[in-house]
């Protein structure tokens, strides 16, 4: 019945003008749906069977993308209420909580989606590593992914300051002072970031502009390229995919007596061309439906979080009264833990090493073993090194988050060291 109505709507002149292809009835139309739609053409008309299997990617990249979209939508709505001034920012939070219709749910969704996005970006990176999916020809897409990872952290970090409460103020004060530990340029970087030597009105405005314009704009462009490259690099990595070749046809090899279609001029072959057509299925409806389902589940998860758990908001920011201990946002707590041993190591060397190692990874690890396979036995060394680094970072983060009490002293979470006086 509903389907009939839909088909009728698509049959009208207006319907045809919006959707070029109606509900597809043939394979040709199924291909056309993907090709002729702006939103869907990012994906090929047909994908490999493997792509549909949940265990191939666990949907991690897709979930990250959805979280990003949800963040943009909720973020734009929040911008209608938020004033980036040290006098009014905190009041905006109170207005959202007490006056704005569904304002608290909106802020909660944005907050929880932001934390989830950081987590899912990290999980997505782990998935790509553990399935060896960054190897040729996907090296550069991995590099773009690393940049997107850093952008995600920067987005979360800049957003962290905006409520202008104690939590925001001191997390950013601690976080930005980690940046200040770099020799020679550290103080300069911190100054440029904060627009001064301490967190104040200038810092709030800078973080706001970064958070709502520059960083999301950059992320959007890079996400576009990232997805484009996934398709152009032959879809998802899979075992036994043909090696990437880039034979260039010399210009002299082409007869000059003929005019050419673009297809004939494209050089090289991408792995998807001409192989295994039988293992492929149409993107519509097989992939699209699954993607929509994942989106719905993400929305359900976020709504549950946002309805039942409120985003934190502490006292109005007080520059002369630091909490003890003052902690950076959770994803920097591993570094802050390291800083407590050595500012140079935690603030400069380790973060620099992490970024350099991640960017260099696909160019160092060039063996074509274990592509598209989870925890391939052929990659024991690479897997071990990565896992050890990962576990170390997780352990440091957990120590920094829950095992550190006043004055950064060691404590067990169920028996905190209290020095905070009763008021």
């Amino acid at each position: 019945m509903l389907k009939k109505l839909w088909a009728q709507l698509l049959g009208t002149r207006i319907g045809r003008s919006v959707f070029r292809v109606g509900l597809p009835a043939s394979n040709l139309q199924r291909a056309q749906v993907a090709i002729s739609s702006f939103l869907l053409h990012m994906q090929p008309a047909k994908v490999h069977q493997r792509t549909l299997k949940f265990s191939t990617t666990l949907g991690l990249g897709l979930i990250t993308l959805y979280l990003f979209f949800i963040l943009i939508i909720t973020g734009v709505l929040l911008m209608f209420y938020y004033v980036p001034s040290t006098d009014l920012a905190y009041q905006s939070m109170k207005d959202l909580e007490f006056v704005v219709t569904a304002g608290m749910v909106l802020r909660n969704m944005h907050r929880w989606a932001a934390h989830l996005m950081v987590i899912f970006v990290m999980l997505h990176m782990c998935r790509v590593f553990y399935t060896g999916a960054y190897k040729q020809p996907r090296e550069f897409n991995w590099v773009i992914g690393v940049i997107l990872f850093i952008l995600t952290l920067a987005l979360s970090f800049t957003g962290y300051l905006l409520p202008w409460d104690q939590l925001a103020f001191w997390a950013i004060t601690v976080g930005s002072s980690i940046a200040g530990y770099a020799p020679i340029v550290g103080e300069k970087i911190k100054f440029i970031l904060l627009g001064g030597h301490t967190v104040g009105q200038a810092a709030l405005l800078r973080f706001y502009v970064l958070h709502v314009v520059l960083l999301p704009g950059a992320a959007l462009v890079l996400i576009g390229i990232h997805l484009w490259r996934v398709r152009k690099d032959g879809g998802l990595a899979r075992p036994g995919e043909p090696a990437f070749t880039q034979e260039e046809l010399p210009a002299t090899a082409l007869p000059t007596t003929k005019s050419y279609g673009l297809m004939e001029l494209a050089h090289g072959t991408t792995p998807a061309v001409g192989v295994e057509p039988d293992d492929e299925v149409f993107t519509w409806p097989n992939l699209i439906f699954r993607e929509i389902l994942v989106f719905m589940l993400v929305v359900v998860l976020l709504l549950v979080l946002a309805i039942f758990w409120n985003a934190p908001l502490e006292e109005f920011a007080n520059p002369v009264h630091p909490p003890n201990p003052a902690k950076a946002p959770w994803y920097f707590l591993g570094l802050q833990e390291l800083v407590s041993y050595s500012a140079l190591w935690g603030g400069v060397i380790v973060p620099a090493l992490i970024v350099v190692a991640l960017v260099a990874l696909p160019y160092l690890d060039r063996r074509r073993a274990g592509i598209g396979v989870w925890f391939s036995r052929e990659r024991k060394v690479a897997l071990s090194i990565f896992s050890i680094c990962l576990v170390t970072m997780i352990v440091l983060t957990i120590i920094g988050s829950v095992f550190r009490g006043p004055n950064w002293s060691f404590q067990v979470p169920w028996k905190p060291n209290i020095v905070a006086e009763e008021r």
Partner: protein
Amino acid sequence: MASSELRKLYPWFIVAGLAVGGLVILAFYKDQFREWKEWQHAYIKQEMARATNEAQRAAAALIPVEIKQIVLPDVGRIDRCTTCHLAVDDASYSGFKQPLAYHPNHAQHPFEKFACTICHQGQGLAATREAAHGHVEHWERPMLPMKYIEASCAKCHLASDISGAPKLAKGRALFDEIGCIGCHKLKGSGGVIGPELDGVGARRSPEWLAKHFRTPAAVTPGSAMPPIKVTDEEIDALTLYMLSLTEERLDAYYTSMQVLPGPEAGQRLFLEKGCIGCHSLGGQGGKVGPALEGLKGRRDATWIAAHFRNPQATTPGTMMPKFDFTEAQIRALTEFLLTKTEPGAVNLLKFPAQMTPIERGKAVFKKYGCAGCHGRDAMSGVPNPNAKTAQQVPGLKFVSEGYNKAELRKRILGGQKEINKLNPKGPQPPLYMPAWGGKISEGELDDLVEYLMSLLPKTEKTDF
């Protein structure tokens, strides 16, 4: 024509679709039922019930259900308390149960200038009972209990001037009398043994302060402060005075009321401005201007006020200079001159010049908070564990037997940081004699020594 595999996902679509729809409805449903709406409906119901004619009923039915707020741009405050407390300015609601009760006595503090949280504290921006009253995590200024409400008066008024805040005045007087200033610094003057008290009202809760006065060590382990032995009522007054020390001062309109027109403020101004240099009261003072005794019989309030505004206007050719008094100050001086200059009342006034050195010395003793450790009237000191002097700060009754004047002066100026221990192996006694050199003036020191030397009762004087 979907594959059978895809069909297996259909139940998931239905479940997820219902979940999304249900959760969105739940979110908006929760949003629609806000606490304050119930109170507004209760108010409208009340108004409907009171309506005596059709027109009133129609007006009551039209009362909108909406957030209400009072915006105070001068002080950057927005108070939404009236969202629930809808009848604060409607006297016909007096005696009603909260939140629909009338707020009496607000004629001098109109809501549009003061709203609610300036006096009551709490979280003006909030619109739920718990959060608005401020008894929630991460809100530092919950509502002041009513017994401490006078603490807020000090945000605009001088604590000593307010006849409407007797508890605050009492707390302040007690603070001076007990000699807290001997150990604690306040507004730049005072001792160094205890912490400074500026802003203490913003740092501490009423419960903490009251507990602290009774047994300081219970809330501050190792505190040198002796328990304050006063009545519960006096503890409340002291707590209230501490709560008034917030360093929060309101600008513009609000400071204009710093000096409240009243005879007490007038008396203080009279002394401060040195009026006694030209005029005399009770036979004391200058002879340049007319004596002020019995002024009430000679002049009325209008004349006196006009005289302060411009002396030449009322008395051409007078030598009296024009002081730049505010209107409030003029009113205060006028009230003082009309009430305290009666022939019988002038004796209440005592000017330093009229006092004996011993009387002045007693005032110095009070000013520097010596009583805080040596006891009121200097007779017996407070506990000082492990001090050789019977584990107490010594009383000063017999000071003239142990010191001559020069020695005593040296002792006051130099202090004694190391107090002799009772048990040499025990801990250092927490209280010690601070050095007052550089703080006390030469004249004050002379008077103080005179006072201390006078403490020994004549009958007990022994000659060796």
